[in-house]
């Protein structure tokens, strides 16, 4: 196999195992930390408050404060900070590339020139407004992504689904989300296994034309297979008495701690709104 092929292979496998780890690290949800101990409903409400605040604020200071709070929450919920940072910052390059970098320049954000440079005879001007906008944007993305990830890794997915139902999200949507969750994992496994199977059968080198047709066939096969899996998982649920509404083992009970937490977050929300 050529070097570039090996590079592609490594990236595919890397991306797959990242995806698996990113969505399916259930172990954090079962640790006994601060967020894991909160009532999922109240936790969801407070995280919505956080996210609203992140979207409304125009102050980088407020965002930094919220980001620090988020890391603190992760810490007291016994989440490995290095793991958490890796997981959340991985989204940044994508956003930066497509949104933040173009917005730096005068063509998109007119204003005072901060830095000027020339490439191929074209003048590039980074404006102060553009720079501030980009910083604000990146801060906003990283903070909101961090909160979203924090909520999802400290809550069992079944509980999240139940919370969605409590917030009156229609049954069908909740069911579809639940199914997706379960079978994306199987999907990823199938890709991995098929990929390995192709490799083991075709030996060390696959001509790239041939490789392309195998890939095309695989994608068609994957759709059919995942559709079938979806049906089988659903049958397995029916067989054990599922009739549309998942029953979660511990029914939610809000305790004093939950109300105190809700109170603190609301207070902070109001204070920030007054300050702005």
């Amino acid at each position, binding site marked *: 196999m050529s070097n570039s092929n090996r590079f592609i292979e490594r990236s595919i496998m890397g991306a797959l195992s990242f995806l698996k780890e990113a969505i*399916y690290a*259930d*172990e954090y*949800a*079962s640790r006994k930390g601060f967020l894991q101990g909160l009532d999922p409903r109240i936790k969801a409400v407070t995280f919505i408050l956080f996210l609203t605040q992140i979207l409304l604020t125009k102050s980088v200071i407020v965002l930094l404060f919220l980001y620090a709070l988020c890391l603190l929450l992760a810490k007291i919920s016994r989440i490995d900070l290095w793991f958490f940072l890796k997981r959340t910052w991985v989204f940044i390059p994508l956003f930066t590339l497509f949104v933040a970098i173009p917005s730096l320049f005068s063509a998109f954000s007119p204003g005072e020139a901060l830095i000027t440079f020339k490439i191929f005879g074209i003048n590039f001007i980074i404006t102060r407004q553009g720079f501030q906008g980009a910083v604000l944007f990146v801060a906003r993305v990283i903070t909101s992504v961090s909160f979203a990830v924090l909520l999802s890794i400290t809550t*069992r*997915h*079944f509980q999240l689904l139940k919370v969605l139902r409590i917030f009156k999200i229609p049954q069908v949507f909740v069911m579809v989300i639940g199914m997706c969750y*379960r079978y994306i*994992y*199987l999907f990823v*496994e199938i890709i991995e296994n098929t990929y390995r199977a192709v490799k083991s059968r075709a030996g060390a080198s696959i001509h790239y034309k041939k490789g392309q047709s195998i890939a095309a066939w695989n994608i068609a096969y994957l759709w059919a297979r995942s559709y079938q*899996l979806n049906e*089988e*998982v659903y*049958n*397995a*649920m*029916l*067989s*054990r*008495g*599922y*009739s549309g509404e998942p*029953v*979660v*083992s*511990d*029914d939610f009970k809000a305790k004093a701690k939950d109300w105190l937490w809700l109170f603190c977050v609301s207070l902070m929300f109001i204070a920030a709104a007054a300050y702005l």
Partner: protein
Amino acid sequence: MDNIIFELKNVSFSYLGKYPALRGIDMAIKKGQKAAVIGANGTGKSTLLEVLDGLIFPDSGTVKTFGEELTESALADKDFLRNFRSKVGFVFQNSDVQLFCPTVKEDILFGPLQLGLSPKEANARLEALMEIIDIRVLLDRPPHHLSMGEKKKAAILSSLAIEPEVLILDEPTAGLDPATVRQIIDAVIDANSFGKTIITATHDLHIVEEIADIVYVFGSDRRICRYGDAAEILKDTEFLKANNLVHIHSHRHKEQIHIHSHSHIEHHVP
């Protein structure tokens, strides 16, 4: 009759209307019986079990369960559905689809909670199940991280958790090591000794004698080509060979290769 649990009359089924999987199946399974459905790959064993569990419905013919007809519209009735689901447990051929909760524990509790038990009662059942197959160390792990045999045990316990009267198992021992097979068979026999009806699909003849009194043999035409006493059918090597159920072993004796069929049973019956 009261003690007939499943009664099938002339049942046919085809996938998407063009791939026949069952043809004219007649069957009667009595309470407390151990029945095995054997047949080569693709002869319709899994399809039959799904019909019995009310997951798919025949194109023609009738299925009766506990004296009532099992149809899609019958299952639309909430009471009938709950009653049926709490009486019949199904262990799927593919454990990956059967375990869909975040942890093994939740998977085992899923059935009882769906059927309306309180969390306390459900947990008591969980404890009792750990006496049958002890997988306490796996309870907090996500099912998709387990090995095949561990998944199978979890899947069987999750079906036993609803305390069904009938336990349907699809290939419960395929690909497992001998000790795990033993554990699973023991659990099944144990359940049967408490009066549960056991229906197993398999092509593993080693286990048939233990888990079945009566055997239904499926042929490649997707019909039942023979049924009767387990011991009798297992003795008929010629018949089993014709239905691709015994290995053709090739041994090298001195410089000659000689080929003979080999039913395994003679070697394994104690």
